[in-house]
């Protein structure tokens, strides 16, 4: 199983993502100018501040050549995980519903939070997580307030596309309906603001994030 981690100018967590993926397979970086993904089995769009997050987070990065390849890969059912800035890029690219706005308190926030898996929908990333399960994972972002119009929210909820919510009372950014992560309709594309790649070692916080990587890895092995 080979993971590709897309690196844009201004990405920050790409090495951390490579490290986390490396615990569940092999991993390599994909430079944003590459047109082909080089046969990887799954893609991570990592956290950071691609293009400085200028204008809107993710607005510029989504036009990169590698993102065209990612869109094709996703359309073919390939697993794609967008973390934080990666989530923003996937929303901007239209691969996930909704948008991420500035945190309600207008401050960057870095904090360990509890997530609750919603998980009604099948996804290669969620196979090792029970619906209702609690995960401790850090958030760190300034633009993480999940927004979608009411009808869209109803629809993605009805479709089981909400993957994670912040545990009650722990919503760090004012996200509507406490949404922390969403899936596309096919379930193969997951975006979330919290950083599972920073929750893969008890020494640095928790290991709850590792489940997303190992689940995708075993899903592919069984496919």
């Amino acid at each position, binding site marked *: 199983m080979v993971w590709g981690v897309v690196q844009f100018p201004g990405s920050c967590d790409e090495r951390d993502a490579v490290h986390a993926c490396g615990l569940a397979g092999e991993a390599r970086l994909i430079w944003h100018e590459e047109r082909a993904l080089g046969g990887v089995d799954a893609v991570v769009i990592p956290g950071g501040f691609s293009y400085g997050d200028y204008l809107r987070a993710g607005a510029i990065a989504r036009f990169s050549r590698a993102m065209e390849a990612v869109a094709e890969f996703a359309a073919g059912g390939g697993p794609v995980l967008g973390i934080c800035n990666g989530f923003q890029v996937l929303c901007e690219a239209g691969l996930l519903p909704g948008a991420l706005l500035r945190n309600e308190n207008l*401050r960057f926030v870095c904090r360990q939070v509890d997530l609750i898996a919603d998980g009604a929908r099948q996804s290669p990333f969620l196979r090792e997580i029970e619906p209702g399960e609690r995960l401790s994972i850090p958030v760190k972002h300034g633009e993480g307030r999940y927004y979608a119009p009411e009808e869209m929210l109803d629809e993605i909820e009805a479709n089981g596309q909400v993957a994670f919510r912040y545990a009650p009372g722990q919503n760090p950014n004012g996200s509507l309906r406490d949404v922390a992560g969403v899936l596309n309709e096919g379930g193969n594309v997951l975006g979330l603001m919290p950083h599972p790649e920073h929750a893969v070692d008890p020494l640095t916080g928790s290991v709850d994030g590792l489940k997303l990587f190992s689940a995708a890895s075993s899903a592919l092995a069984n496919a």
Partner: protein
Amino acid sequence: MDRHSLPRPGAAGVVSRHRELGLTDAEFELIVEKLGREPNDVELAMFSLLWSEHCAYKHSRKLLRRLPTEGERVVMGPGENAGAVDVGGGYAVAFKVESHNHPSAVEPFQGAATGVGGILRDVFALGARPIAILDSLRFGELDSPRSRFLLDGAVRGIGHYGNSIGVATVGGEIYFERPYEHNCLINAMCVGLAKREEMVRAAATGVGNAVVLMGAATGRDGIGGASVLASAELGEGDDAKRPTVQIGDPFEESKLLECCLELLEQGLLVSLQDLGAAGLTSSAAEMASAGKVGIDLDVTKVPLRETDMEPFEIMVSESQERMLCVVEPANVPAVLVLCEKWQTGAAEIGTVTDSGQIRVLRDGEPVGEMPVEALVDGCPLYELDPAEPAGWIYRNRATLDPDAAPADTLLALLASPNVASKRWAFEQYDSVVGSRTARRPESADAAVLALPEAGNAIAIAIDGNGRRVACDPYAGTVEAVLECAQNLACVGAEPLGLTNCLNFGNPEKPVPAWQLERAVSGLADACEALGVPVVGGNVSLYNEGPEGPIYPTPVVAMVGELPDARLARSSAFLREGDAIALLGPFAPSLAGSQLAKLRGELDAGLPQPDTEAVARACALLRDAIRAGRISSAHDVSDGGLACAIAESAIAAGLGCRVDLQPLRERGCTPDEALFGEGSGGFLISGEREVLVELGGVVLGRVGSGAIELVAGERRVSVTLADVKRSWLSLRHLASPDRSE
């Protein structure tokens, strides 16, 4: 004419111009003598910057010679862009603290942001990848709207730059004291990791090699800025000295950083140097001086953001996010290709020569020519004229009734901004990026970062309680060094090296001169006693407001090594039933304490710390931590033992019962036992026999729910919830209406 730029030729007499630029008549005469003629505009501008306090250390260099700088683990010492120590496994850790006080007093967000940007460049100039940022901040009291504005902007600015560039901000400190009201202190530290053999120095070598400027285009940023500005007090309404504000662009720096590291990895650079204060002038001159060569620079080749810039403006611009490197001619095309990959600017702007001169050319025609030696080492160094003041020169203001009940006193101390939790601030910083942060802010006394490459870990602490240094500059500075050492001991780390930033008032005045001299003596003696080399530092003088100098503030930062990050303890109590003990030569006194401040009873003088005894206690604790024998460790500092106990309890969500009778038996009053401060105290918890065996004095037990302290007739009984509420009193500072 732009009020920040230099007068053009003919605009005014030469004599008044050098004064406007901060040079004395004697200094100007010396320049004329060294050149054998009068300097032209370009030369005068360049001399004035390099001969400023900020660049030439005119008033501090002689003192700094007293600092011990040698040690087995030192890889790079003072004189390089940052200091570096060997951490084993073929790796070195580079680190430095730098001030950005004056720019931040003008525009706190950009001032702090560019402060972080600048210190990052100093570290990656060595070929080290930045892995951590720390910040040390000082403001006036929070009841002042201006202080709140500066605080808010500075915290957001540090977060903005560090978060965007993806370097974890893992620690820092914030103090609020009236003397910083008109002159806040913004000191930023960066720590980087490098393979020893890939490190690079800043010396330009190889006559005929190309000089390449990388990064952002050059604009009129900070012209007459940091260098000149940092060398004179910033008076009210002193507009002419205000620089054009420098704007930080962390995105640009992130590309520049990755590009530089990749260039070094490919062996394409001969040497590398950041552009900081005094821009191209100082970088080129320092590189030439270190390599004992000359450099020719053609300003027409410098990529500009604005078209109509004069040569002197290009030479002194402080535009951010730029680096200068020396490249063998054959490698220039490869360098340019990599810069293109990283979408970072690059231009060959000059060559290394054997002339020993810095020559500034415009379209190939010289517009300035100066001996490197005169620029870099020619500035006269001054003796200080110190005088000890008669007594306490700062104002006192009482905000707490001396007769308040001990429980109320404890809650007031915990709620006071110097002691209260800084969570509202550090949650605005990404502390986890890089996957190394084993101890995040507030979880232990020092930040702990794992170094899987080297097979071990480092711990970092930064301290400098200006109020105590004001009481006694010598003892206060010794205490700052000891506190760093104690913080490292609490996580089981052994000090490898120290850096510092000396923030003081006007050195031309007797009292700040005395403070500076005594502080440097304390720094030297403490480092000597601990055997910790000073590998670098920075000096910021002329920090004064209308009421006089700031508290003298040496900010000390120490980096230590521990074999395994997993061994580090937290400052939080671990489990109910553990014994609590005091370890170390702690002799608490109210002198200079947070309580004395609240009671308005500050006065000159501090007890002299027993450095040797503290060093022994540090070693003892370090070994015990590494052996896994202790549950928690926390050093006793602001607010004394009572506050240390409350902090360990809050962090754990556990209570405790403690009797301070052993301190009473050492002759302490109840107030001193509860709230007195001083070096050498560790609050540790664990198995009773172990603590006793270590020489700890058992004071009580970890319990649940409430904190109960007894000191003779004085008793404190408070619920954990009350204590926590007081300690989180600054939470509101992260509310939205304070941000913009």
